[in-house]
């Protein structure tokens, strides 16, 4: 009986890991590797038209080599888009994470009234879908409709700030919650010990809570960097309301324009590969830079 069981176990040990891996591998192949592979394939193709391009057979798909990549990298509009997104991202990251940190520390302080209500009301905007939030703010920004009076919120100089405001409004609550949850997990004895040593609440926040929070801050920063690199909803939704946002305002908007407005799927595929590469470099680069500081000692 025992020996038979043993035999079965040996047999299973051979196939079991693959069996357990199979669903994950199948899903990865279907929903990650395949689409990415297809995008790479598309990015190496282009349309070749002959003559007037009308009628049957006038349009063929041909191999383009790296021409689409050369065009994507050589397009000044893409890099101008990156600059705009960097400025926007810097604003969003600093304001959103700064506010999230301040709110989390305040809520975690010893004596706060209405903590639950405050926490929920700060978090609530996160539950509003991006398009709805942007439209709502968009209407508030329009001079003739705005309750804030006739300020040019959507003018060339202010539009980045106005857009960042929407993202900060929507994202602060989520990041605050991540930080706050982390703070609640900290053993209260640390603070007690600090107080006995004579530390003030501010001192505790600066010298104990923030250092403990560093890994969470890094996590939220990476998520936020990825989100800002992919900014699309806010500018696309605001675009019809103003003439200060171009169809290529952010890199992803350029991909959308190439694919669905001007009908060049191949350039769009190449540009998205470039964007994916840059956002990988940005997020992993950031992680690498902070890794030693954050996780070095632990």
């Amino acid at each position, binding site marked *: 009986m025992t020996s038979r069981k043993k035999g079965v176990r040996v047999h*299973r040990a051979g*196939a079991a890991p*693959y*069996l357990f891996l*199979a669903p994950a591998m*199948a899903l990865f*192949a*279907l929903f990650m590797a395949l689409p990415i592979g297809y995008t790479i394939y598309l990015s190496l193709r*282009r*349309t*070749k*038209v*002959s*003559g*007037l*391009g*009308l*009628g*049957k*057979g*006038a*349009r063929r798909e041909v191999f383009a080599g790296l021409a689409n990549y050369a065009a994507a990298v050589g397009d000044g509009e893409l890099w101008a888009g990156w600059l705009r997104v960097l400025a926007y991202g810097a604003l969003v990251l600093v304001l959103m994470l700064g506010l999230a940190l301040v709110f989390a520390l305040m809520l975690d302080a010893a004596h706060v009234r209405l903590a639950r209500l405050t926490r929920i009301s700060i978090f609530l905007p996160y539950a509003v879908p991006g398009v709805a939030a942007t439209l709502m703010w968009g*209407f508030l920004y*329009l*001079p*003739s*409709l705005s309750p804030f009076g006739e300020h040019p919120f959507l*003018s*060339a100089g202010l539009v980045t700030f106005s857009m960042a405001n929407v993202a900060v409004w929507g994202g602060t609550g989520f990041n605050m919650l991540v930080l706050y949850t982390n703070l609640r997990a900290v053993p209260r004895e640390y603070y007690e010990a600090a107080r006995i040593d004579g530390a003030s609440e501010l001192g505790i926040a600066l010298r104990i809570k923030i250092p403990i929070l560093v890994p969470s801050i890094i996590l939220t920063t990476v998520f936020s960097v990825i989100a800002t690199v992919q900014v699309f909803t806010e500018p696309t939704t605001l675009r*019809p*309301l103003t*003439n*200060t*946002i*171009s*169809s*290529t305002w952010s890199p992803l908007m350029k991909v959308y*324009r190439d694919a*669905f*407005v*001007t*009908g*060049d*799927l191949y350039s769009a595929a190449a540009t998205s590969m470039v964007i994916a590469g840059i956002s990988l470099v940005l997020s992993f680069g950031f992680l690498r830079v902070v890794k030693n500081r954050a996780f070095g000692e632990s």
Partner: protein
Amino acid sequence: MRVNRLAVAAVAILTATLSTACSGGSDEPSSPAAGQSAAPAGPVKLTYWTWVPNMDKIATAWNQAHPDIQVTVSKQAGGDDAAAKFLTAAKAGNPPDLVQAEYQMLPSFVAADAVADLKAETAQAKAEFGEGIWGLVTLGTDAVYAVPQDSGPMMLYYRKDLFEKYGIEVPKTWDEYAEAARTVHKKDPKVFLGTFSSKDPGWFAGLSQQAGAQWWSISGDAWKVSVNDEATKKVASYWGGLVKEGVIDGMPYFTPEWNKALNDGRLLTWPSAVWGPGVLSANAPKGKDKWAVAPLPQWNAGENHSGFWGGSSTAVAAKSPNKAAAAKFATWLNTDPQALGLLIKEGAIYPASVKGGALMTEAPDYFSSQPDFWQQAASIGATARGFTFGPNVNVTYNAYRDAFDKAVAAKSDFAGAVQTMQDATVADMQKSGFTLAQ
């Protein structure tokens, strides 16, 4: 044993999924032929993408009379998104059988080989349409790529009451229009005679047509692109000058701000198309009975020209398995008196067919103070001239939005924006390999 069976099953599922995913393209050459030759077993089922309001009611009328051809309407969002959606669906191999195609997008559909040639099926329908409109669906070739549905001859909508208040006459020339713009804005700095919309390339194309522009033309086997022709530059510089002067506003059409300005009486005119009443009544309800129509101001006194803004046709997808049935419906929809009556009443459109135009008698409710609205429209419509649209209008129109957005915001040279449109159009055509004439 069990392990193996599971693995086999997993592999089988995976293969099945992959092979269905890849089979989209492989059966495409055989299916149209098979569909046409084989007698359909049940009723033929057609899908129709359109954004005409209440089209489902019109399709119901057809379905009741034609039990063998059943049409299902799928309501679309309209505009450039609808065109992109159709092109993507055609590329993916599952387009609808029928699609509403704006005239300017039809060449893109033809170039993508997404719509069928209906020459044989529409031989009789041809007589129902004017030559200018018919040219928009043949692209000047021997083929017929769609059946015209509605057209959008341009005219000037103006606030009768406010024209009296500010003491201005209906402008007959664009010079008079500019003068009126200065007068109005001087009397009340919050009020503008009109606004230049950087979001509506179709509007600008119509105004350029009025001035005699020819953005694309076919000479032999080559395209000639002249978006930056003299007529277009003249139109651009005219509006650019007024925007720079500050007497014409720069807010785009169809925005909440624009609606409010119209409704509050802060915008006095709208050079628009025959479908304007629907927009005005929805967005500026307070202006009912206060608006009137006149011909567009002219570039030279005594001339009589207009252009087209919008208008669309009904096309049949090249990949539809039931092209003959679809063409039959498209013809009925746009030429049959019952269908035309429904299009006017339920769809609120201005039919392109000659017969349809004659059916328009009662002025729109919003314009009840102008009983001769449709007579005006018909006589203005007869003066409208169009131009051939090229195979990459989407690129040109996108360049219009980006370039004029910038030009309006910076109040810079509008002729420069026209040059940007030309350059973008030519560059895109060169990249794709179109033959271009100099």
